[in-house]
């Protein structure tokens, strides 16, 4: 286990403000792990989408339902799990937001962004109901030399 390894669990109420809390924890963890700024930004967007979906589609903003977030950095890989208490869905049925007929739709881009910004997006559906999405990303650690590069 490297000193950059970390693990944090969070259980949150189904409110959109809590997307900010998750983002804050993620940012803190990634800064501590010396992850570069661009990666932090794009991973941040992907995680926002996952948490927003859990609150909106999964728990339908029911204040009594929780969103669980697990944030781990193990062997230079960031693994984020977001679990809701919703009814699940069929990821295979989600329309392609790049298809001509979907380009002007106001929604349907969240999962697509997750896929673009992460190395892996995996859906699991619990037998008790509820959706778990696991996002993975290899982390590029900033070395001292690179940091200097940035401030030049």
């Amino acid at each position, binding site marked *: 286990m490297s000193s950059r390894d970390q693990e944090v669990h969070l259980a949150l109420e189904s409110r959109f*403000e809590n*997307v900010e809390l998750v983002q804050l924890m993620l940012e803190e963890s990634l800064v501590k792990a010396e992850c570069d700024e661009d990666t932090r930004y794009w991973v941040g*967007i992907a995680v926002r989408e996952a948490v*927003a979906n859990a609150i909106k589609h999964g728990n339908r903003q029911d204040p009594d339902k929780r969103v669980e977030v697990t944030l781990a950095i193990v062997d230079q890989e960031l693994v984020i799990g977001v679990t809701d208490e919703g009814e699940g869905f069929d990821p295979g049925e989600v329309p392609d937001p790049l298809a001509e007929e979907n380009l002007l*739709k*106001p*929604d349907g*881009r969240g999962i*697509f962004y997750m896929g673009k910004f992460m190395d892996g997006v995996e859906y699991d559906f619990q037998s008790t109901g509820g959706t778990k999405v696991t996002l993975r990303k290899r982390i590029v650690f900033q070395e001292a030399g690179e940091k200097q590069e940035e401030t030049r």
Partner: protein
Amino acid sequence: MKIGIRHRQGITILDPKGKITIGSGDIALRDSVIEALESGARKILINLKDVSTIDSSGIGELVAAFTTVTNRGGKLKLVGLPPKVSDILQITQLVTVFEVVDTEDEAVESF
């Protein structure tokens, strides 16, 4: 999120600041576009230079604004895209949909 409104040579310019994300900013953007339309504006420019983060809901609101403005016979353009906002529009192939201009001056002339 705060949205400033300016007027310049017949063009209504919206200046959102901060995050256009789910539950904060997305609705505010929608409201100010509708308000502009209702007060008669047909040339609407959104200056995104002070937007730090936009998520899929924010992008969705931009698309919805585009559709609404177009349906009412107006025009919606975007200017001042920070690199990361530009990237995110690019990724979803929306740069082809939106008319994105480089400077406000260019926008004013092009409407």
